[in-house]
């Protein structure tokens, strides 16, 4: 395939960009397989919550953030109030304010283009593409597009074929989420300050779980990065 493109593209950076996108998609492939399984379980939950077929698909495509979508739909499925479902999801997604700032330097083009590219930021695409705060643009786009395809197609499979899969919890799917984040974390622990940030973030979240509303412990974990930095300088 690459041979076919080389005649069209004269600019060297463009071919580098293409191989970088492919590398990102390859790197994220095992995660994308897991993400499609999560998508199936989200689709099943959404169907059980009476969301219909189209709404869960639009949800996965626009929000594209698993934990927030699960939180919102779980609240609805348990008969919770509408504002509670919205607040839980938005709180969980507050971290994307920070991730959005982190990926901003890697985005290109006009405002509309950058706004669209920023939507591709999810925990996994960001973690796969970043090292020491620097984002590889091609890896980011490749990883994110593979994840988006996996997540939305998984959602469709879950919504349409839900009944034949049974209860995702009985397969232990919910334990796969933290396991995936653990694997991503291992790849981020290159320095002592990173290790310190992780320990602080985990501890802060742990302490806040019993006292703060859902979503707050994860956002508060971000302050672990600040404290780790201060500690490193002292």
């Amino acid at each position, binding site marked *: 395939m690459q041979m076919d493109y080389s005649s069209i593209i004269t600019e060297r950076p463009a071919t580098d960009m293409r191989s970088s996108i492919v590398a990102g998609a390859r790197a994220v492939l*095992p995660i994308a397989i*897991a993400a499609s399984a999560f998508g199936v379980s989200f689709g099943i939950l*959404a169907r059980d919550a*009476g969301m*219909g077929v189209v*709404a869960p698909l639009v949800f996965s495509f626009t*929000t594209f953030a698993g*934990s*927030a979508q699960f939180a*919102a739909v779980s609240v*609805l499925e348990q008969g919770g109030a*509408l504002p509670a*479902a*919205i607040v839980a*999801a*938005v709180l969980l997604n507050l*971290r*994307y*304010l*920070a*991730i*959005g*700032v*982190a*990926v*901003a330097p890697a985005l290109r083009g006009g405002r509309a283009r950058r*706004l669209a590219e*920023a939507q591709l*930021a999810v925990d996994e695409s960001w*973690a796969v593409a970043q090292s*020491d*705060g620097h984002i590889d643009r091609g890896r980011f786009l490749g990883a994110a597009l593979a994840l988006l395809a996996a997540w939305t197609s998984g959602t469709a499979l879950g919504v349409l074929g839900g009944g034949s899969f049974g209860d995702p*919890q*009985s397969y*232990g799917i*919910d*334990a796969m989420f933290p*396991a995936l984040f*653990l*694997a991503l974390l291992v790849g*981020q*622990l290159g320095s002592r300050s*990173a290790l310190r940030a*992780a320990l602080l*973030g*985990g501890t802060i*979240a*742990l302490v806040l*779980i*019993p006292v703060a*509303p*859902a979503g707050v*412990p*994860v*956002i508060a974990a*971000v302050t*672990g*990065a*600040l404290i780790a*930095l201060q500690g490193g300088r002292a």
Partner: protein
Amino acid sequence: MSTPWIVVLTVGAATIALKGAGTLLLGSRTLPSPAQAVIALLAPSLLAGLIVVQTLAADGALAIDARLAGVAAAAVALALRAPLLVALAAAAAVAAAARALGAA
């Protein structure tokens, strides 16, 4: 409008704004280096927070259940340098087994 659509559109719009705010406000400017140093440490702190919450939080309280057994199994698999999908499968299988044996 039905409840699911209100959730989908409200949360969708809020998420688009949250993800997009960084690039719209920053443009092509780069952050000062102290802020960059913090951003470099965001990933480990945030991922650790997510792991703790998704392993131990249940309805606003701490809970030790089948998920912890699953994540422990994944940790062992990762320590043994198993491929990611093997580690994830171990997490799911051990959590499912713990649940089948009566863990919550």
